[in-house]
């Protein structure tokens, strides 16, 4: 029985013809990149299996790296990595926060774009240049400062050095190449990165609320404390963690500055420390297959740590940005 009502046209979301080719092509490119990038992670994980099954949990606690004695472990380098990153964040966090506040709240509006570009440029400067800056310019001064810290705060285990603080001629070689010196150079590297994130979040503060605070009689600091900082809290935390992720993975500046050493020590001012990335850069050349696997495991551990830190940072930053949509 023929119905007089027209039957609805069948709609299909399925691509046909050229569109189908495009979709398949794009999918193929995506799959290729997925295989390449994901392949690295999978490869690192796969290479870690023999090392981890050979050394077990001792790989994380053993501090020595003596392939000839079949004793391998990343305990010392993990501690060194964390202490270098800790020193870097100790310097980078307050300076990044202050600079971001200055650019977004204090600087005259005319020079603001220039300052923003300068911070971006600072982030683009290669790490080898900060490494040379840290090694040739800063390290002698950092060593002198280390001596002063040792003399006056040496009773704190963090600042103690195995040397005589009050020697007539101070032994500079005990104070250079330390986690402290490397941390300063790494701080220069991560500072612009955290600063850029913080500034971006600060600049998204709803202007209405800022003006409301000022209209109620708040001083500029009052306005910052009650509006800008609470609003930008996610950006502060996220930017710091992004910087931390970068600081943990930094290689070349650290390699240039430190004197490699495989001892777990909390004494950040003393000569000799190491980081995972510097260990890889220093030991890959003469590594046998087994040691290469151990180095890859160390790299995998480093990758996992930075991945966790970066992912947390990204989540925190994006959550803080989602609040930016609630301006009235």
């Amino acid at each position, binding site marked *: 029985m023929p119905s007089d009502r027209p039957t609805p046209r069948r709609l299909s979301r399925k691509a046909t013809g050229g569109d189908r080719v495009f979709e398949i092509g794009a999918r193929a490119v995506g799959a290729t990149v997925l295989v390449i990038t*994901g392949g690295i992670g999978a*490869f690192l994980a796969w290479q870690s299996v023999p090392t981890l099954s050979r050394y077990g949990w001792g790989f994380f606690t053993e501090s020595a790296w003596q392939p000839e004695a079949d004793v391998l472990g990343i305990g010392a380098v993990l501690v060194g990595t964390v202490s270098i990153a800790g020193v870097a964040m100790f310097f980078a966090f307050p300076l990044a926060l202050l600079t971001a506040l200055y650019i977004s709240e204090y600087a005259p509006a005319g020079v603001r774009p220039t300052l923003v570009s300068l911070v971006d440029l600072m982030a683009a400067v*290669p790490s080898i240049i900060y490494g*040379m*800056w840290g090694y040739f310019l800063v390290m002698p001064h950092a060593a002198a400062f280390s001596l002063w810290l040792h003399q006056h705060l040496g009773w704190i285990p963090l600042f103690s050095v195995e040397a005589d603080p009050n020697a007539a001629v101070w032994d500079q070689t005990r104070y250079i190449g330390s986690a402290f010196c490397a941390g300063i150079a790494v701080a*220069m590297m991560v500072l612009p990165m955290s600063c850029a994130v913080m500034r971006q979040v600060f600049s998204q503060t709803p202007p209405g609320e800022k003006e409301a605070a000022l209209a109620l009689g708040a001083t500029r600091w009052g306005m910052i404390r009650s509006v800008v900082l609470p609003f930008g809290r996610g950006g502060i935390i996220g930017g710091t963690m992004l910087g931390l992720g970068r600081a943990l993975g930094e290689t070349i500046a650290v390699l240039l500055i430190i004197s490699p050493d495989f001892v777990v020590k909390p004494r950040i001012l003393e000569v000799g420390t190491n980081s995972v990335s510097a260990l890889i850069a220093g030991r890959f050349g003469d590594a046998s297959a087994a040691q290469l696997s151990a180095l890859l495991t160390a790299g995998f551990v480093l990758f996992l740590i930075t991945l966790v830190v970066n992912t947390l940072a990204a989540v925190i930053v994006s959550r803080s940005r989602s609040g930016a949509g609630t301006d009235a």
Partner: protein
Amino acid sequence: MSTPTSTTQERVKVATHLPHRALDAPPPVPRPGLGRPTAEEQFTTVGAWVSAFALAWVITQRLLPLGGVAWLLVVWFVLGLLMSAVTTSLTGRRVDVIDRVVSGIVTSGAVVVGAALVSAVVFVVFRGWEPLMHLNFFVDDMSGVGPRDPFDRGGIGHAILGSAIQLGIAVAVTLPLGIGTAVFMTEVGGRFGVVVRTIVEAMTALPSIVAGLFVYTVLIVAFGFPRSGFAAAMALSVMMLPIIARAADVVLRVVPGGLREASLALGASRWRTVWHVVLPTARPGLATALILGVARGVGETSPVLLTSGVATFYVTNPTDGVMNSLPLYIFKGARSPEAMDIERAFAAATVLLVLVLVLFVIARLVARPARARPPRRTPRAKPVPSQES
């Protein structure tokens, strides 16, 4: 509805009265800025810091045994805060004092960062000045040049060429793949697209040394490939690919959806829409992503250190043996015990710095048109239809 009265009423309703300024009226005087400090405030701010400097000089250089610039600066900072607190408390209340002190701290922090940046740049340029004065430094290679030879022999031409070749290969690999992935993630998407985006974002966390170690293990150890410019380019690609893909993804996502829909509604295929509408709209942003990726890649030392090896002569074939590059040359020079080598390394660092600066300025200039117009997002929800329709 179309009676003349209602039209006039509507017209009255929508008419806007623009204020007219008399042509011969004097130009409007800019209002004094409400937030601008008065002369007295400026005097207390500046005067406090000037007097603090004088006091700090007396204290550190004359009274106490604290000679040296470091102590002067530290004491100046502390005294400056103290002085501004005291001068402000003469006229203001507690909140004003805190405000002034915090503003001093914030400004000092920014000045410290600026000083550190300037010191790094000036120091590198200053130490590397002498070799740069010889033109052969830019075109010659270091073959047969000893560490104590004068600066009019030898140069870093081979390192510059090596960097250019390696980056060229890396860009040729990463640009199509990175932008293709970004197109896939934004234009096709789906569940698989989410997986790809997650993995790509995760891989941006890969430390560059691990990328280098990966290529070293796979290409050089497992496949028996020689250490070469090609291997270095692969290491750089592995590192740059997630960066470029992610940056391009961000740029493509802010292309207005209306443009895509308009193109599709006119009957264009999806490929033509991407090629003629989406990519041209995002071109400045894509160029910026590429240039920033290159600026990052040109200074990356650790992947190159593992994969390329050091040559002292011109190498043009990237698959044939060791090849030097700019960051590697700097690194080797900086670790050398010879003073002349270190000086050459500083000169090469200056070249690298200028290169990064130029790339950065180009990126800024390219990105400017996109910056001039406000970034438009595709609306998340449809706006509520207005009532009068």
